[in-house]
């Protein structure tokens, strides 16, 4: 048998062996048997050197063809065996996708702080900065500088928490102490205006305290957000536009806003701001007490007397201020029936928002 026939026979045998292989391992042994260092096809190729110069190119070409054919067959078979193996592995790895996932919940921000953060974001977007002040305040900042007369009822012991003053000073106002837990965030206004020249655009969120028994609609400690703008040419219309923008962003574009004249000692003119009831749309229902409106904040133009306390010229500068309770806004926004939930720390509540 000539070498050409030998090659031909090897090709047939090799291709048959490849075809027979039923696993990647047997396929590999087929490859080694024919194309390995000691493989039968390799041995034939090695014998090429002994051929005559006329035979060599012909046989050489043939042997390359055989080798290429076998290699291609090996590759094809490998791909097909790999595909089969993968398919069976995939079949074995099927899961019930309705089984629950492995959950590690991130912690939740308190709903009050979510509300505060949203408000802060809105006003930072309007060019405001954020300010803080002490929670234990002096009567001067909480009342006097905000134009509360000395006998203002809010100063009474039944409304405001007073703190033991260890400085040895005798208090002017309540007889015992002029150090108190701030009853609103408005004293931050005074601190800001004492230390900063206009233009002033600030928002001051923080804890405030009033002597109310904790019940579904009262807490002795709650969260207020104060806003203050002092600049040249600030108008009541600016206040109105700013608060309308805020309320619509907070509660939705479809809600209506109204400013109702009111009285606060440190703003003039003053107003309360109502938002149309989200449940009845302003028709009047149980949730808004039949009024169609829900009161959400107080505001007004900074009273010239307040400017007087901090040395800002009220003829040159005007300003507005507003304040709102985060608990009330959160309660309205999420329909929370009892304010005490905010402060008790029941994790089933904290997780909801």
């Amino acid at each position, binding site marked *: 048998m000539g070498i050409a026939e030998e090659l031909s026979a090897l090709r047939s045998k090799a291709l048959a062996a490849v075809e027979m292989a039923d696993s990647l391992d047997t396929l590999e042994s087929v490859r080694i048997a024919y194309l390995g260092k000691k493989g039968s096809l390799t041995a034939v190729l090695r014998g090429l050197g002994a051929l005559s110069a006329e035979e060599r190119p012909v046989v050489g070409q043939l042997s390359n063809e055989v080798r290429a054919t076998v290699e291609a067959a090996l590759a094809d078979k490998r791909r097909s065996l790999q595909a089969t193996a993968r398919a069976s592995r995939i079949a074995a790895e099927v899961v019930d996708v309705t089984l629950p996932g492995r959950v590690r919940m991130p912690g939740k921000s308190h709903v009050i702080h979510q509300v505060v953060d949203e408000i802060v974001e809105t006003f930072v977007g309007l060019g405001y900065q954020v300010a803080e002040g002490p929670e234990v305040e002096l009567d001067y900042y909480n009342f006097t500088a905000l134009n509360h007369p000395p006998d203002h009822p809010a100063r009474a012991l039944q409304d405001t928490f007073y703190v033991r003053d260890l400085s040895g000073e005798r208090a002017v106002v309540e007889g015992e*102490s002029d150090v108190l837990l701030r009853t609103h965030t408005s004293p931050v206004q005074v601190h800001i205006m004492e230390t900063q020249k206009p233009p002033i655009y600030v928002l001051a969120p923080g*804890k405030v305290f009033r002597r109310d028994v904790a019940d579904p609609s009262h807490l002795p400690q709650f969260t207020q957000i104060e806003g203050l703008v002092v600049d040249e040419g600030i108008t009541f219309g600016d206040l109105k536009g700013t608060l309308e923008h805020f309320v619509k962003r907070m509660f939705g574009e479809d809600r209506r806003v109204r400013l*109702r004249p009111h009285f606060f000692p440190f703003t003039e003119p003053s107003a309360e701001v109502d938002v149309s009831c989200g449940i009845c749309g302003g028709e009047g229902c149980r949730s808004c007490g039949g009024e169609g409106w829900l009161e959400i904040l107080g505001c007004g133009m900074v009273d010239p007397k307040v400017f007087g306390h901090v040395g800002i010229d009220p003829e040159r500068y005007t300003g507005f201020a507003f304040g709102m309770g985060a608990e009330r806004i959160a309660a309205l926004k999420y329909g929370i029936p009892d304010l005490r939930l905010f402060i008790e720390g029941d994790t089933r509540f904290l997780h909801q928002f």
Partner: protein
Amino acid sequence: MRVSLKWLSELIDVDLNVAALCDRLDMTGTKVEAVHATGAALDGVVVGQVLVKEPHPEADKLSYCTVDVGTDEPCSIVCGASNFKAGDKIPVALIGATLPNGMTIKRVKLRGLVSVGMMCSPTELAVGGDASGLLILPGDAPVGVPFGSYYGLSDTIIELEVTPNRPDCLSMAGVAREIGAVTGRPFRTPASVPDEDGTPAADLVSVRIEDPALCLRYTARIIRGVKVGPSPEWLVQRITAAGARPINNVVDVTNYILYELGQPLHAFDLATVGMAEGKSAIIVRTAREGERLTTLDGQERVLATDTLVIADPDGPVALAGVMGGEATEVSEKTVDVLLESACFDTSTTSRTSRRLGLISEASLRFERGVDPELATRAADRAAQLLAEVSGGTVAPGIVDVYPAPPVPLVLRLRGDRLREIVGAQIADDEAATILSALGMGLVPAEDGFDVTVPTFRPDVEREIDLIEEVVRVWGMERVPSTFPGGRERVGALTIAQRRDLVVGRALRAAGLDEHIGYAFADPRDMERLGWELGPDEVPVELINPMSEEQAVMRWTLAAGLLRVVSHNQRRGVSDVHIYELGNVFVTAAGRKQPKERLMAGGVLTGAWQRPAWNESARPLDFFDGKGAVEVLFAELGLDKVTFRASEHPWLQSGRSADVIVRGDVVGWIGEVAPQVLDAYGATGPVTLFELGVKPLGKAGNVERGYAEIPRYPAVNLDIALVVEESVTAGQLMQAMASAGGKLLDDVRLFDVYRDPDDASAEQRRLPVGKKSLAFSLSYRSNERTLTDEDVRPVHEKLVVKVCRATGGEIRG
């Protein structure tokens, strides 16, 4: 302020329906808090006419009547009264009506005859005291109309929220004036001129004011020969609608004038007021040390020396502006009345009323400000009314002490300033119309008006107050909405504020929920926790706490967090992992305001989640808390943090550590000591930590620079070191860090092994009292791929140094 619309209609013709009126009041600054319909109690009672009256065949005292009640068919009623005849108009309660006494009218059979209603007496309808017979109505009473509206019982009461700056709206006349101004309708001011006779008042009474700053005006009128008794029905209806209880005709008249004009009045029994120089002598003065007065409510009160009293020569007879005294009270025996109509200082009244816990309709008005000009007008009207309802005679003249009548304030309103502040084009003449309607006098000036403020508007003191008046009536809803146009503003958070946000975000990422707790604490928390404040530090004490449990300000977040654990556990929630960012407070002798420190606290107990099909619920312990804290430090860019074993009374010994940053203790972490868990009713293990946010922020670096990502692979080598129990992981890692040189990139502890306590000698794999810690060490260069030859000498040197430093041995 309760406003009867029926009463109001005598003072102003309002051309709006109730809803529109309320809306207009809301939008001009007088909020309507509630609207009630009254007279509804007599629903089902109508005016009827007796058509036929026959004796009842079975009963002498009853009659059988046919009564027209305005329906197609007259009805049959059996009646026991005898004071009527056929043709009389009477009130008839129809089937289903419920009378004020609670009786509901039903169809009944009386001695065999059916009765389908009841004819009523004044008592049955609660409109009078006569129970002897039916209420016979005038002949022109319209048959079939509801009795309540015919008899004037139906009314609408609107409750107004009058803001503290508007004392002028605490009267019917004031409300009428306000409504007139906001609706553009004319209003009527009630006034009377008394018919006077007899000895002039000035001969009967003298008045002296000791301190005119505390009493701006005091007037006295005398009404003689009164007969004290019940008030007529119209008067009772009026004061009842306003919210008062009828007492007697004299007191009721003073209340009537208080509600009608806003002038508090007081009636003294003239005979009980002490005399001086032949006259009853009224002295307005402050109380003397130790003086006492028994007030109308029967309480004896010790008076402070700044309390303003009405006195006679023998001593105080009334608390000025707050409450009268028992001894001079008008009674059935009273014949002559001294009527006080005065104006007392706002602060003095408010202090007295608050100190004595006495809030009256009078004190409410005086502490907000009563118009001194009103005193005589109110006295005249009250005197005349009193004479009418009590049959008395008004003594001629009024004793009026008015040391310094106020000069009306004149304010300039600049039109341009008005428009600048409001941001709306309000024309000068529109502003003028509004102010005039509010009772202000206007004179044009070059840039606006000079406005004379009436004395009943003490709140209007400055131009800005006039602007407020204009804009509230002109309409805030008409002001165009704009945004401030300031050019020099930038909205941003400060670095400290962003740091606080990072703290919260990191702790939430670590799995903790945010809590906001009370800033109050229980002073007994000190003992429960075994806490000791720093030298000289004391808790911040509240003078008027709500309760003993909230009597001080918290000096740590720990107690509040433990209370949350217990609150949840009591409700069956065992997995609690929360944090709080909040201030704690301490003070010291000599300090006015306390120190406020922002702290981050956390508490962990239970598990991260409930056990699931593919995970168990691993109980949280010290290292979960420490892990959360480590996440926080990583996020704050803090790397040089050490945890040093420490002892704190509220933490379990051996499971607590101080957290040290750059040599300073910035906080602590540990598992809560068993006795502390008991004190708070919590079940452990509970891990608690508290860190000062400011020192963390200072040491941390939220805005750090770029560090190159490793380009070459690391060579990882593991070693297990056998050391004495007393050697800590921290010491080993410290030793490795200092021995590893530049190439040591990372050290990771991956196993801690101890022989079990009950292991036998053969089972033991370590010498007694030792433990094995296994570390994976990564060596890496930034310049090239390291070979074994590079690393081996470094690693061998490290092993030798670490063993020498810690007494450890390589585990074979």
